[in-house]
């Protein structure tokens, strides 16, 4: 967590760290419910990632703005209320412009409210840093999260439907792995991905 490496351009540093070094999915292991639930196909995963980016940036900025006003144990409740407000906005935007996706994601959009990633960033970053840094931290963590979702979704969609983004890409006679569509496939994929990322990154 030390910020020593990037003393000159803190905002850019916060942005880049979110992408890989502190990748929410593979490194911090937070916000797992949607990681598992919406990654059966790439499209819903990207929609979910975009909603999370929107909510994360807005809540980071607002929390950072009011960080001097709210102190003590009411803080967490205020964070949650802020997040809930933006999630409501995101939910209604999705319902209006992407009704099909909204139907598919169902209760997982409102469940962004209790996504540990967003509360975690509010507490760990936005509550301590200025607006500019929090804004870029939101972008970094949000995009890092979306990359994680997209990686899961690509693997699952490829193996389950032999397709990516709805376009068939596998050879003729490819047998679909139905298990990847099921919850079991989600758990197994994430477990194996985490294992692989540990294996290749810890060796250094």
């Amino acid at each position, binding site marked *: 967590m030390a910020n020593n490496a990037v003393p000159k351009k803190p905002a850019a540093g916060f942005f880049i760290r979110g992408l890989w070094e502190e990748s929410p999915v593979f490194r911090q292991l937070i916000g797992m*419910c949607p990681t598992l639930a919406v990654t059966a196909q790439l499209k819903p995963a990207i929609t979910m990632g975009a909603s999370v980016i929107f909510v994360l940036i807005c809540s980071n900025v607002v929390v950072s703005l009011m960080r001097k006003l709210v102190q003590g144990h009411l803080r967490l409740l205020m964070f949650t209320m802020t997040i809930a407000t933006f999630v409501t906005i995101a939910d209604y935007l999705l319902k209006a412009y992407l009704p099909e996706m909204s139907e598919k994601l169902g209760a997982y959009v409102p469940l962004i409210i209790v996504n540990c990633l967003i509360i975690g960033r509010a507490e760990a970053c936005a509550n301590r840093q200025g607006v500019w840094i929090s804004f870029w931290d939101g972008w970094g963590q949000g995009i890092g999260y979306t990359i994680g979702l997209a990686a899961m979704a690509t693997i699952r969609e490829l193996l389950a439907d032999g397709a990516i983004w709805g376009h068939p890409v596998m050879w003729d006679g490819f047998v679909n792995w139905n298990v990847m569509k099921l919850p079991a496939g989600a758990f197994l994929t994430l477990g194996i991905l985490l294992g692989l990322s540990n294996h290749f990154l810890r060796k250094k």
Partner: protein
Amino acid sequence: MDKLVELVIVFLSVVLVNNFVFTKFLGICPYIGVSSRVEMAFGMGAAVTFVTTLSGVMSWLVNVKILIPIGMPYLKYIVFILVIASMVQLVEMYLRKFFRSLYDAFGIFLPLITTNCVVLGICLFLDLWGYGFLESLVASFGAGLGFTVAICIMAGIRENLRWADMPDCLKGAPITLITAGILTLAFMGFSGMIK
């Protein structure tokens, strides 16, 4: 009598067939984090069951009796969160006053429950499924119980995993997820029970 059968089906469905942890992926964070000892897992499960039952019923009442009649359903997420937070606070105060030993046992779990996905999840799904009052009561209790069952099974397995010989890179979260995947397959056996 029909009503009773229906309630039993709702209960079984939410505990076994549509278990929140295994099919809806809710409450995964404590599932991965806390579930390394059976007693701890059971304590967490009991606290969650308590809170889901209370907040499921309360949020149903607020949603159906207040928010929908006055035409403000867009406030429901904010209100649900408030209901859950106040329920957790209430339970905490009540236990501290009257059941000191239980309070000490639940310890740090109570405040964490506010952000447990199972609790908000049940409030949202009750709204989505359009359940009535009794079904909501049974389903909220069942959701908590299903969570407890899942987290206790997992803790039991993890206690034994400590002696398993596995590659270093799989230790911790990865093996837990893979185990959960296999458990999910086992739980699919229940899916034939209802329709």
